[in-house]
């Protein structure tokens, strides 16, 4: 198990405090900068490793950044704190985005990112809770995160804890039936302590979701399963923040975050081939320049 990086964790705590004190414009800037730094980190990780899921990493990073830097009640130095909020990344193939975010929050030293996908690295191509603090369950095969999160939400209820469970799903993975078993359970049990965030980038590995096995109307599907549904721009940090923290009713909440796969890098945006294509050195430097601009 990797250990926390106390200095970065202190920076993260400062960020959270400054964010809490800041006005909307500054808040937007802070999360935008933070997310784009993680995008750059992620691109370099993928370049070094020669593998990764760049498109989905870039689409989910604003969601993860908003959660870890503005929402989740967690402590990078106490990853096992029982009453922490839970964040489950069901779309485990975007582990790179999670690792970049966790390292930026001080859950483990950023230097570890250089080992991504290397021999014996703690940072596998898909996240492992036994090795990486901040990872709540091992994901990778699709359709696993929501049932496990339902279990965590039931546990929160049994323990009468105020902790909240957030689970981030890809839109493509909603084609897995296990999600709908779990969605039914969450709706029936009125798990208002559960929020599912759908990274709705409308692309899966080989094609558009709607050309493969269409998901729309996704909001109606979740409503029919007993959920409250919010639909927001998935790169609008303040809209995400509002959706993640809005007062909950008596039902679980589904946040459909409309995103762009490859977000932030013009030549990758909304292009199916960047699902897991690896950028070369020139492309990484062009992307880095765009993200810094």
């Amino acid at each position: 198990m990797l250990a926390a990086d106390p200095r970065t964790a202190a920076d993260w705590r400062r960020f959270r405090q400054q964010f809490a004190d800041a006005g909307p414009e500054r808040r937007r800037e802070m999360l935008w900068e933070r997310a784009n730094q993680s995008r750059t980190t992620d691109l370099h990780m993928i370049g070094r490793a020669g593998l990764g899921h760049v498109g989905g990493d870039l689409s989910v990073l604003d969601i993860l950044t908003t959660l870890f830097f503005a929402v989740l009640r967690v402590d990078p130095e106490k990853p096992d704190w029982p009453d922490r909020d839970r964040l489950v990344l069901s779309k485990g193939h975007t582990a790179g985005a999670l690792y970049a975010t966790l390292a930026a929050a001080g859950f483990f030293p950023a230097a570890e990112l250089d080992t991504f996908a290397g021999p014996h690295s703690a940072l596998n191509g898909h996240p492992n809770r036994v090795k990486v603090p901040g990872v709540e369950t091992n994901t990778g095969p699709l359709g696993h995160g929501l049932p496990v999160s339902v279990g965590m939400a039931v546990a929160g209820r049994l323990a009468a804890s105020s902790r909240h469970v957030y689970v981030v799903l890809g839109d493509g993975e909603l084609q897995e039936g296990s999600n709908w078993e779990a969605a039914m359970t969450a709706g029936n049990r009125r798990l208002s302590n559960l929020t599912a965030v759908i990274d709705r980038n409308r692309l899966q590995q080989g094609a558009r979701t709607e050309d493969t096995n269409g998901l729309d109307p996704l909001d109606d599907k979740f409503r029919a399963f007993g959920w409250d549904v919010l639909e927001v721009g998935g790169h609008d940090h303040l809209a995400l923040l509002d959706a993640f923290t809005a007062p909950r009713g008596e039902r679980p909440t589904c946040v459909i975050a409309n995103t762009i796969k490859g977000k932030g890098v013009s030549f990758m945006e909304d292009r199916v081939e960047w699902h897991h294509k690896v950028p070369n050195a020139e492309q990484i430097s062009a992307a880095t320049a765009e993200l810094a601009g």
Partner: protein
Amino acid sequence: MSAAVHAGSQTFDCRMAFAEELIALARADERIVAVCNDSVGSSNLVGFATEFPDRLINVGIAEQDMVGVGAGLALSGYIPFVCAAAPFLTGRALEQIKADVAYSQAPVVLCGMSPGMAYGELGPTHHSIEDLSWLRAIAGLGIVVPADPAETRSAVRWAATSATPVFLRVGRFKVPAVTGERSFTFGTASCLHDGTDVTVVAAGTMVSRALQAAKEAAAEGVSVRVLNMSTIAPLDEQAIRQAMRDTRAIVTAEEATTTGGLGAAVAAVVVAERAPVPMRMLGVHREFAPTGNTAFLLEHFGLTAADIRAAAVELARTDD
């Protein structure tokens, strides 16, 4: 070595012992919860549901969800007993068992109810004979097959304390009491009858039959050791190697497929030794069961005391 334990004539459904023990544990420890797939009745959870309605999470007919929910509970500090008919628990939710439970090291107790061919006439869809082969391939997952109600109770008590996940087969087909006062020790075989010619390694429903076989073989002048191998994974390799030294051959008997269950596990130990001993693996080999009740099917597949005796005697004589 222990004195012989002979099966009595009274027989028991191990689910009763399971349910009673689970309720007793739940009274003492509020972390104990049960998760099931509409199987409140068939998993004998009615009493649990009455006494602990909030701690029974019935997700309905949804096994993938059921195992994922169990993992989420375990990762949140609860001790979930995830109960479902063994064929559906293992077959339908195999990837959840692999990824959410074993790989994630979530200490879930997976309770495979009515395993083997307990559902007799309902047919191969409802038989769970592949479970041992499937699950033995998964790293970090303990596999426990109690032989009688007392061992079931003891195994349930142990499972609640296990820091690692476990699959527990909870038998429905009635068996006699065979383990006496011995308590279950994870990863350790127990010798229920000592012998010097052949060792029978048996699990679950086969243990009482193996004891009967040993008695019958003795009448034919063949001395049979009976090992109750109630932990299939990790296997008590030491007990197998000891059997290879003390006896000349090994018979395995299981209500499961021979492709990857107990027999295959024992064989893997035997062939790795410098001087392997001859073996016979009794079980189901690549065949779906015909129609019939459990007793008939066990006979059909050569899993009676007479079959075990015949295998042991044949091996003893071949080797003479």
